[in-house]
């Protein structure tokens, strides 16, 4: 298989495809942004990048590329499910979430109280955006020049966003795990990883066969996750500012979990 040639325009379009969302979550994070948080964000982008590179490197080892020869009795349903849940969902989310946890333990964990800090959500978002940046650049580079803008728009609106939302959702689960202890906490986070894989898999699975009906459900799910994240953001981040003026944090009595 020939080496993919990535040009400067592909990198520019790839960067532009994640920029609006990076700006949006950075600006929406109204809590003070310390130096550590800013370093964590940069590392988040880098680790997102690393996770894509690792997946691209591992992919041919796990699923060796074969020539384009039709297979006997191949069902599109099976291949779609494999692609959506295993190749995309499980692989991508496992790598991203491993890096999110690593980064959060490094910069966003209070070892005294054993609680994740709010900035973990921001790190989760930026790992996802770092991942999307490289993935989008690759997809844009593969496309013929006539279709680059079309793929850029699709990756910007749908792909970057869904990566971001799934990982933000996981980030909030990290915060929600603060009230749990020991094994309960580990199983809670493992279930959250399972949910991320499921979210990724279901959206991809419905999109890949290309049925309008499937696209409707996938878009509805996508918007549903967005609403969930917006409401969690309000509870766990926006209301933290209000919490400073009150004795009971908003997050203690209102949760989407």
């Amino acid at each position, binding site marked *: 298989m020939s080496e993919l040639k990535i040009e400067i325009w592909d990198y520019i379009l790839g960067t532009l495809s994640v920029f609006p969302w990076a700006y949006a979550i950075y600006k929406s994070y109204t809590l003070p942004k310390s130096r550590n948080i800013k370093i964590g964000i940069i590392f988040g982008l880098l680790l997102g990048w690393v996770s894509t590179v690792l997946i691209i490197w591992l992919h041919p080892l796990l699923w060796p590329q074969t020539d384009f*020869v039709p297979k006997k009795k*191949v*069902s599109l349903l099976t291949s779609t499910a494999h692609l959506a849940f295993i190749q995309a969902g499980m692989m991508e989310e496992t790598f991203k979430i491993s890096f999110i946890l690593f980064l959060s333990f490094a910069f966003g964990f209070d070892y005294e109280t054993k609680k994740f800090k709010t900035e973990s959500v921001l790190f989760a978002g930026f790992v996802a955006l770092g991942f999307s940046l490289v993935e989008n650049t690759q997809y844009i580079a593969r496309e013929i020049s006539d279709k680059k803008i079309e793929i850029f728009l*699709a990756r910007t609106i749908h792909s970057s966003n869904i990566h971001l939302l799934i990982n933000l959702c996981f980030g909030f689960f990290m915060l929600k795990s603060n009230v749990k202890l020991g094994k309960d906490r580990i199983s809670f986070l493992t279930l959250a990883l399972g949910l991320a894989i499921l979210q990724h898999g279901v959206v991809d699975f419905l999109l890949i066969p*290309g049925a*309008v009906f499937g696209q409707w459900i996938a878009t509805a799910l996508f918007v549903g996750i967005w609403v969930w994240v917006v409401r969690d953001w309000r509870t766990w981040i926006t209301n933290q500012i209000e919490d400073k003026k009150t004795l009971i944090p908003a997050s203690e009595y209102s949760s*989407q979990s």
Partner: protein
Amino acid sequence: MSPLNQNLVSPWAKKSLSFLIWMSPLFSLGIFFPLGVLCAFPRTFSVRKKALSVIWIYLFSWILFFPVEMFHRSSLDSEMFINEFLKDETTVSAIKGAFVLFVGILLFINYVHSSFRQSARNKIRQIKLETNSPGARLRNGNIIRDTKFDTFLLIFFLALLLSFGFQVLIEKINPPNPHNPMAALAGIYQFVFNYFISTAILLLTFNKSKTPSLFSAFLLKYQTGIRLRETWKQKAEKSEKFSFLNEMEVKKRAVFRERLLPGAGHIFLEDYWRGFPFLFVGLLLWLFFAVWSFSFLSPVFGIQFLGSMGLKPGIPDKDFFVASQNVGYLVITILALTFTYVYSMSLLNKSFTLENLGYRKSVESDIEPIFVSGLRKGFRNILPVSLLFHLIILSLVFVIPISIQRNASKKNNSADKSKHFQPDKMEFYFIDPNIPEEMKGLNGGVITGTDTTNKEQGEKISNEKTADNGPKAGYIKKIRGKKVPPTYSNYISAKMRIPESYMEYWAKAPHPYSSVVSYTITQDGDIIDIELVEGSNFPDQDRLTLELIESLAPMIPPPNTEGDIRVTELFWNGPIDPNFVPTPLQKEMVHMFDGRYMEEVSE
């Protein structure tokens, strides 16, 4: 100022949300993003009214165009009638002009309405002013834009320009397909939709914080309901009392939503684990109701309706055709739909009983908590989720995506083969409505491919002269067997039309394109052993060709044969000319009926 009126969303977030709402149709987010905004931002009225206007535009366009689309899909006659009617450019322009005029009239009524309201407001102010400060003059610096005639004109004409811009963008991102039989109708729909959206963008942007006068009463009433609910929610979270009359106001609004769609009332009360399952069950049942109704009128219509959403029956065609004439399925669907409405409504009413609201002592302990998130225990809470789960499983049996093949049947069930229902008249089962009228029966040829210069070469192929239909038996893949009557070939061509159209197969194909694919149709109607015999230089299109073949299943089993059928088929988009295709095999196959050669494979 009530805390519920506080501006919780920053201006930049509002602007970004507004942009995404207006662009949601262009970004393929459709009606879902505006609906999401309604759920995520209950208090931000300025954003909500934009989301509502996009939802209304979608609903209005669907109400207007969906019946026409269904009529178009109902039969070949109606398709030809509409396409013939829209063939003339002046007719299309007249229809578009009528819509522009309609919007213009609406805008003008809005201007007049707003002017009257403004003058009425001024009169009241003037009276108050004269009472309080006699001789003082009324200051009126902030005139509402709606009341200005030049604003009306500006919106009216600027909307045309904006919709033209949208049109150019859409055509750039998603070029129209001239081979699509819906192209003419889709063109008008796109224009109307773009013009409505453009008008809404300009109207709401120029008016800034003011709602368009014509709709302000409704919008304010709607937002009052949301505000009441939010206040109740806040009070419930703090375990404070909420006025009974206001609770009844919320109930009125919840019941209204519930009547429109089951589950909508529960969603309004933010009981998502009950509301969404009921909503999806209701929507799925409405889909089934439409499929059974259309199929009862004509099975072809039912398949076409499913095809329009990229779906197909999950059961073999012959079973679907028989089932579609059974009114029992329709009755069961109506009963299920009625049950869903009644049960969902009765659960909603339980939330508003005097006992539940704490105005009367409860004799039972089955209190319905209000504004409590998460899945609650108890039969009535689990039942909606369970119903949805079972209905999804059932739906996957009957309806599947067009591009997916179900390998349900197994081989070596020869005992069952004898029980297969073999139609006396194959014509009944030919699902394609595009077979030309002048052909008697269905034994004639249907030309596949596009840009065919010589249509005469697609003429009838006699049943008797099967040997004329292809190379000698066993030439391809060295499989020997008897020839299959061309009528089955017609059926394959007809069946292929729906996925071809849906996948925009020929629209996406590069020019020139040619490839040869081989596949087996089993006695159970499955498609197996799909093989690319000769690929092109376009792997993407080759892959699409294989997906197209795979999407054909389940099919009617090959008639009058004991074994499976091996089909070798040429896909090309040029003339019926051997010089057009590159390989000897393709040069030979180009003259076969529909470029297809079939033979029975002995087991």
